[in-house]
């Protein structure tokens, strides 16, 4: 979002019938912002209908809204004070229309929360406060309205403001301005009026004028998500918008998730002054000094201050979908121009947004409620913590054809930190070859070798098959090497003992390494009785130009090991005694393996 100076977008929220439209109508009337004749026209319409004129009618546009007397969508209108221009976003207070409130609030720089003094804090008062926090609106003014109905009582005001101030503090919105008004009578809107001699705070207009201007986001790290790549006039232009930071001609850009780099050759535009730098909010078109393949969804950053590249992270979400959000179900995740299939791995906490209390034991998130979830994506996503770079720390979830929820990223596991990924991706990788790190990014995991060793009958084949199935279900590339697929082909020329058996084990280890280098987890299931043979296999996994391939030796122990020619390993990564069941064996291997390959 680009911010204009001297303009503040203000969303007005609160429980239904607490007087939002009346307050807005009054703000317009008091600042002389109404179109000529509008006031007289509405008074005349009210007379024709035989109802008293209400300031609330100024905001009503749709017939349905007049009929139901509730604001069903967000409308936006403008008024001006000596300090600045305000764009008012009127958000509905009815529970059915929370998605409209979210739509309105997401455009806002600040919020005006309105509470009916006679009714006090209600369901939507809390829900809206909580949603504002999730949406990222930090500037809040709270107005306790309809003070005329409670005889302008300071006691009532103190009770309501105390309760709601404490609530806002509990959700991390500290120190809002809270003030009493009567919108209907115009008390304490533009000026103090006669009824609030006991109140020493500001009027609504002066509280609004005291809100600081929206901050620029140029001091954040560069985030340039690619919207599209155009080929016009023999130029290949990467088009998008700078979402954070500054981009300059000559900058070295790192593209995620590919890990490729190139230099900004030129900043392109049409009928605009030539510039050599673009800042957050600017539309961007750049050409690169290399013929790099870049597509929509890539995010260009500076390598020194890159985001995480993650397939798993924790988010606080709000849910607007018609059907509840459930763990295990698949959704489309959109984060800037990145789109990827995802699932909710775990529902850590489900929150009733009307009370902002945890719902114990809830296994889904209902419409208009919230949750803390762990999201797992099919492919790696460039992502920042919301608190650090808001534009790259917020996502929406699409269920079927519909945008059904939104969320902010609050935690990304350390293993996805930018530095690891950037180093792995091979920042200076030769364009002509696929770097190991790129395979990692594509698959969402590294390659590895799991070497199952044990005497015949110890359960190697059963464990190998079970592991293969589990890993496959988790979208991990996996393949099993055993006597059945090695002996008839690759080692058809070899016998089963002495040097020929050693040669067979060497070939198996080399093939396992190739699988791992190609990005797969290779499970080797051979008795492999000789300790020296297994140690040689481990050494084969060393790679000259990078980290060794993870090699996990899993020893399936047996009672007759000692009596056979079998040499048990001295320090296996995983040791599985005879009395351990299959499920537990699978779990133990997975525990070790997943840490190595994620």
């Amino acid at each position, binding site marked *: 979002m680009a911010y204009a100076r001297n*303009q503040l977008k203000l969303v007005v929220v609160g429980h239904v019938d607490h007087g939002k439209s009346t307050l807005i109508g009054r703000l317009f009337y008091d600042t002389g912002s109404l179109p000529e004749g509008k006031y007289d026209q509405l008074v005349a319409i009210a007379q024709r209908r035989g109802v008293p004129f209400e300031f609330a009618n100024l905001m009503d546009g749709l017939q349905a809204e007049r009929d139901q007397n509730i604001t*069903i969508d967000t409308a936006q209108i403008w008024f001006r004070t000596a300090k600045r221009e305000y764009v008012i976003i009127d958000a509905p207070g009815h529970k059915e229309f929370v998605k409209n409130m979210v739509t309105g609030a997401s*455009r806002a720089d600040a919020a005006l929360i309105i509470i009916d003094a006679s009714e006090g804090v209600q369901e939507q008062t809390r829900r809206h406060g909580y949603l504002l926090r999730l949406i990222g609106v930090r500037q809040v003014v709270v107005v306790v309205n309809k003070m005329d109905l409670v005889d302008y009582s300071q006691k009532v005001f103190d009770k309501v403001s105390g309760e709601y101030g404490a609530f806002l503090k509990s959700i991390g919105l500290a120190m809002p301005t809270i003030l009493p008004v009567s919108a209907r009578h115009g008390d304490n809107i533009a000026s103090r009026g006669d009824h609030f001699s006991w109140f020493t705070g500001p009027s609504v207009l002066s509280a609004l004028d005291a809100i600081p201007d929206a901050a620029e986001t140029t001091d954040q790290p560069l985030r340039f998500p690619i919207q599209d790549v*155009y080929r016009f006039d023999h130029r290949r232009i990467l088009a998008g918008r700078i979402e954070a930071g500054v981009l300059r001609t000559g900058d070295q850009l790192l593209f995620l998730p590919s890990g490729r780099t190139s230099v900004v050759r030129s900043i392109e535009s049409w009928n605009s002054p030539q510039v050599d730098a673009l800042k957050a909010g600017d*539309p961007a078109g750049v050409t690169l000094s290399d013929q790099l393949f870049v597509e929509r969804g890539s995010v260009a950053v500076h390598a020194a201050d890159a985001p995480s590249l993650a397939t798993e992270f924790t988010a606080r979400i709000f849910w*607007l979908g018609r059907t509840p959000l459930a763990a295990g179900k698949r959704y489309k995740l959109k984060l800037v121009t990145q789109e990827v299939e995802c699932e909710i791995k775990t529902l850590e906490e489900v929150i009733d947004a009307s009370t902002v209390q945890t719902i114990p034991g809830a296994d889904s998130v209902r419409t208009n409620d919230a949750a803390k979830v762990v999201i797992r994506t099919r492919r790696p996503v460039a992502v920042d913590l919301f608190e650090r770079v808001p534009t790259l720390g917020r996502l929406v979830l699409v269920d079927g054809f519909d*945008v059904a929820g*939104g969320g902010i990223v609050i935690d990304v596991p350390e293993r996805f930190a930018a530095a690891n990924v950037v180093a792995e991706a091979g920042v200076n990788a030769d364009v002509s070859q696929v770097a190991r790190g790129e395979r990692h990014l594509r698959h969402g995991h590294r390659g590895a070798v799991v070497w199952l060793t044990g005497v015949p009958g110890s359960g190697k084949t059963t464990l190998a098959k079970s592991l293969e199935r589990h890993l496959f279900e988790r979208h991990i590339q996996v393949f099993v090497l055993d006597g059945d697929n090695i002996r008839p082909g690759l080692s058809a020329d070899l016998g089963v003992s002495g040097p020929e058996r050693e040669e067979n084990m060497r070939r198996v280890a080399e093939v396992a390494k190739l699988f791992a280098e190609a990005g797969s987890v290779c499970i080797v299931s051979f008795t492999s009785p000789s300790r020296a043979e297994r140690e040689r296999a481990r050494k084969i996994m060393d790679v000259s130009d990078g980290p060794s391939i993870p090699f996990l030796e899993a020893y399936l122990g047996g009672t007759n090991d000692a009596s056979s020619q079998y040499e048990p390993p001295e320090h296996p990564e995983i040791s599985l005694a005879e009395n351990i069941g299959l499920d537990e064996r699978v779990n133990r291997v997975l525990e070790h393996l997943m840490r190595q390959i994620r």
Partner: protein
Amino acid sequence: MHTDHLDALESESIFIMREAFAKFDNMAMLWSIGKDSTALLWLARKAFFGHVPFPLVHIDTSYKIPSMIEYRDRLVREWNLQLVVGMNKAVLEAGNTYPNGRATRVECCGMLKKDGLQQVIEHYGYTGIIVGVRRDEDATRAKERYFSPRNANMEWNASDQPPEFWNQFKTDFAPGTHIRIHPLLHWTELNVWEYIEREKIPVIPLYFDDGTGHRYRSLGCAPCTGSIQSTAKTVAEIVTELKGTNVPERAGRAQDQESEDAFEKLRRDGYM
């Protein structure tokens, strides 16, 4: 590096048009020849580096003021545009239009513009239509989304619209439906003129006083569009005039005044 309000609006409109172009395989832009959709056309050329990579649809009611058509055809040549002209020929041939036929102003708008547009959308199979409507024009347009779905009958369900936040839009939709894209939604009439002045966009001279002391503020069909009293002869004079007015922009558009909810009903049924 300074951002003023026009830069911010321009950036937002460009972002939206690029999103639309990336997400819709078969998209077109409505061009009424008026100031808004011509400013939008200019923004498209900015977004796509001097090009307009999709067709422009002009719904010709046959009642347009003749100089509008001349101006249209000149820009098509000079700016190298692809133009698609839609016209509801059946209704025009039947002669059932306002003011000579039996139709009211609103019915006439519905047939010539709304139905004319529907015929073009169905014929070309467009799934995305860029339209230059603005929130400040009218209360119903104030409720619009940037990406606003229409069902197979082009109807707008104003009371159940998709959420739209964090620059993520509704770009997934059922077959047979289409999405209206509104890049100018948050511009005001004044913003549009300020932008025309800054960018020196050529606009049709009907907007200026031709020496009679009148000019058009909003352009539509000749029988239903009235001029306003004004001596503004340049874009700069229009900007000055607008800063001092409290009269609604569409006050000269007679079809809106037939009943309290005339324009609202037209829009629900698929009017732009």
